């Protein structure tokens, strides 16, 4: 075990991947010599060559299109989109192509080799275009997998699983935690199964669920709730697609209450899907309406970021409301 921040953990997962397969390529804007604007790919070009770790021209649709082609050829294609806010020019290539490649061809061809990494999320004074959490835009797309890690250990294990998974995976990295989150991470290879949520804290009064950077926030809220004698069960969803209905439903059947929290705007965020499914699965167990604590329905602001975000206080309020309903 070694102490790593999230960038190191990601770099380590990429390093193992590159060593494992001579055809694996890493590419995106500035990922080459410079190692990416966040330095996640630092040192990899030097180690594996410019032909396998390279800068692309500045075109997200091109990056995703190129990645689809390379993955279809059979090479592990690990593309970086510099900020999740800039993934939208690639939307067609991802939603209409990556996601439908295997199905439309009757499995004659597939892009299971594709992994798209991209930093997401706010809390860094990034404003409209360096703060978005666009996971829900992709969650409506059968054929994709979507993963979000909460800390370095999770990041390495989930990224390795995402790369090895035989389906196209979008891997959202909580950039606010890139350097801030530090922990013990094995240097050797390991994977964490996709599609499985994790109960990170057991509790009995209310289930609180999030993923990625938002885990830190709901943990803080749970601490506050504990001071008031409320016992919170905390779940990290980890995979958005597919998501672990069973673990969540089992928890809610036990606690009778659920609070879901995400940074993205509330309307049609992935919280909506969780609520819709869980009210179905747990109808007779619910003791209060399922609450969502999310970003407001506005573009991501700057000066009033503090007011905008679903912070621990807001989550705490929702917990109290749920318990007192």
């Amino acid at each position: 075990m070694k102490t790593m921040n999230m960038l190191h953990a990601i770099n380590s997962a990429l390093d193992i991947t590159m060593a494992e397969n001579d055809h694996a390529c890493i590419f995106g804007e500035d990922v080459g010599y410079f190692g990416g604007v966040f330095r996640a790919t630092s040192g990899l070009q030097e180690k594996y060559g410019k032909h396998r770790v390279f800068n692309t021209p500045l075109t997200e649709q091109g990056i995703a299109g190129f990645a689809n082609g390379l993955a279809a050829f059979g090479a592990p294609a690990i593309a970086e989109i510099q900020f999740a806010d800039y993934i939208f020019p690639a939307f067609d290539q991802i939603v209409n192509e990556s996601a439908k490649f295997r199905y439309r061809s009757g499995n004659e061809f597939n892009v299971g080799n594709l992994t798209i990494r991209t930093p997401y999320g706010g809390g860094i004074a990034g404003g409209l275009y360096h703060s978005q959490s666009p996971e829900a835009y992709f969650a409506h797309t059968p054929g994709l997998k979507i993963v979000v890690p909460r800390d370095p250990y999770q990041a390495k294990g989930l990224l390795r699983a995402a790369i090895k998974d035989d389906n196209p995976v979008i891997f959202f990295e909580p950039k606010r935690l890139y350097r801030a989150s530090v922990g013990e991470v094995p240097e050797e290879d390991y994977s964490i199964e996709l599609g499985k949520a994790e109960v990170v804290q057991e509790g009995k009064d209310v289930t609180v669920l999030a993923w990625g950077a938002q885990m830190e926030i709901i943990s803080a809220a749970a601490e506050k709730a504990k001071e008031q004698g409320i016992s919170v069960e905390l779940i990290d969803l980890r995979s958005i697609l597919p998501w672990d209905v069973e673990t969540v439903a089992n928890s809610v059947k036990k606690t009778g209450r659920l609070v879901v929290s995400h940074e993205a705007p509330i309307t049609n965020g992935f919280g909506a899907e969780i609520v819709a499914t869980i009210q179905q699965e747990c109808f007779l167990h619910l003791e209060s309406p399922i609450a969502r604590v999310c970003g407001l329905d506005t573009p991501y602001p700057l000066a009033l970021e503090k007011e905008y975000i679903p912070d621990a206080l807001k989550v705490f309020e929702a917990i109290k409301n749920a318990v007192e309903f």
Partner: protein
Amino acid sequence: MTNPNNVSLNISHELAFIDSHALNIPTYRVLNEQGGVSEGATVPEIDQATALKIYDTMRFIRALDERMQAAQRQGRVSFYMQCLGEEAAVTASAAALDDNDMIMAQYREQAALRYRGFTLEQFMNQMFSNEKDLGKGRQMPIHYGSNELNYMTISSPLGTQIPQASGYAYGQKIKHINKQSGELDSEIDNITICYFGEGAASEGDFHAGLNMAAVHKAPVIFFARNNGYAISTPAEEQFAGDGIASRGVGYGIKTIRVDGGDALAVYAATKTAREHATKTGEPVLIESLAYRLGAHSTSDDPSGYRSKDEEASYRENCPVARFRTWLVAQGWLDEQEDEKVKEQVREQILDALKVAEKVAKPPLEDLISDVYNTPIPSLQAQYEQLKSHIKKYPDAYPITAGRIK
């Protein structure tokens, strides 16, 4: 270019604009419109077997197109798209490739697939989306694909295959790169050809795909089929430059324009392009000029946007007839024999159609297979629910009800 701006740096003190059509772009042609060898042209090296296979393919596709167009009119198939007028461009370019080269087509390139050996039965199964369709009955007619034949399954969204071709070709190149030097250390064995229309070339994906292939040296032949129309939109409302060829220089890509009605010119140009790509890893742009003689698709009626006169004037210049004339002059083709084969092909097509339309539709599990490599739990649950539903109301789902396990 050794400056950071990556440009040629020849200083001038004259305030002068480069003209909007500054480039001189010839159109390469071997056979004249009557099928004779043009004066001054050299016939490219081509063996009899290849020439006849090209002709056989064009003849087959012409017959298939005719037959399926009619089948659509009769309501037997829901949709069809003809290659009419572009047979030489598609077939002769495919003929210049190696069988293991990847073909990424737009949708009007059935001749390339046929050249590779896609069987009549396979064409039919796809169009009738029956259970024998390699694509499992999921896409509209003409969305063929075959892993075995290295023909990427057609995707309706236009232009998306262009950057994909760059990525695929880059993959083909990797093993030829010397890890130390980063340079090629052997001739690339297989490359990718990417076909697209002059309409699709307006998509952002075109720009991304060509630029990335040029920068990363991906061995792709970009084959632009400029056939004058994108559905109803004439080429003059599609671009203001000199065709698609004028864009090559903007990407630093070697480019050639060919007469797409001339199988020999297309064959020679593509062969040379392939050689360049395998030796250097660099992409090449070929623009083929032909005329979309038929309707855009069976959903289209061109009389709403172009004149019969225009159509008629291009009908005379038939690429199949042109090549046939040359083959006959070569003594490689017998006219009477040709007519006989045509008749046989027509009959075979009709027979195959009758067979394919009776083959069962895909089973219910193919509704959910291949979304992922294995179904995710939620989808599996949806499937179980659907099965119970169909079992409850079998009459409402006649295609699948009888076959549910």
